[in-house]
């Protein structure tokens, strides 16, 4: 069973691997439909939250994880993301494909790690690390706290030093989109 974290929802949702693929590709489409910028980020966050509510309802119904068929139904009910008639910048970018609308040049490599502001506990390092390596953020945090004690505080010092060097990003989705894009860019 795979997991996926969604904006606003604590913890991650158990989903099967094909269901996760569906959701990730839906969210990538949504992102390219709304275009870049804070407004688009907000819309994608809101939609992630709405999907999360539906996944929660689905999981409350009994299954241990969201199956592909259920995910397909939920995404069909959510419907394709339409930027609407007035957002000229987004409609212009939509047909040209996700990479073309991206602000970052394709192939340009990302710094090794970002810390994330929205949903952070302290500096957002664990959240960044979890997003980067596709791990659950609660596990990363538990591991970090355990390690803090094991190293009798040394990790804390390392954390503080890292705060000075690691750049920041606003949201998990933004980081995920940037990662996705840089992976795409590195491929021939």
């Amino acid at each position: 069973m795979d997991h996926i974290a969604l904006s606003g929802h604590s913890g991650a949702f158990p989903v099967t691997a094909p269901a996760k693929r569906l959701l990730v590709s839906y969210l990538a489409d949504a992102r390219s439909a709304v275009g870049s910028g804070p407004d688009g980020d907000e819309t994608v966050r809101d939609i992630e939250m709405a999907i999360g509510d539906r996944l929660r309802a689905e999981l409350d119904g009994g299954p241990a994880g969201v199956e592909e068929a259920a995910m397909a139904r939920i995404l069909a009910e959510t419907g394709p993301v339409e930027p609407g008639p007035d957002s000229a910048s987004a409609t212009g970018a939509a047909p040209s494909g996700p990479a073309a609308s991206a602000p970052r040049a394709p192939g340009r490599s990302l710094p090794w790690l970002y810390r994330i502001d929205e949903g952070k506990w302290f500096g957002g390092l664990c959240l960044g690390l979890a997003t980067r390596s596709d791990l659950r953020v609660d596990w990363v945090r538990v591991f970090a706290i355990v390690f803090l004690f094991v190293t009798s505080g040394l990790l804390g010092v390392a954390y503080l030093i890292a705060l000075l060097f690691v750049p920041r990003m606003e949201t998990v989705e933004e980081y995920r989109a940037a990662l996705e894009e840089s992976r795409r860019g590195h491929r021939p």
Partner: protein
Amino acid sequence: MEAKFAALRRGMLEPVVLAALDGESRYAGEIAQLLRDAEFPVQDGTLHPLLNRLRREGLLTHEWRESPSGPPRKYLSLSAEGRTQLTLFRDYFRSLATMIDSIGH
């Protein structure tokens, strides 16, 4: 015929969303439910981009409130500007409705 009705509804979505917030603040899920109940269904993929555009245009304001289940919710309400536009939409719609009945008579 349903396709033609759907085309009409598309143009009405913005006024209807503003009307759904008349005198009451609601979060997106409530708005969607209200519209479904009124047989004016709208999908989340359409509703959320619209709500954000209206917010950017200053017609809606928002406020985060805790929810009994799940994450905090963004409650939207009409700004003064939004209320004005809703009134204008309603007046215009009434004039259109009278026009379609009276034109040609």
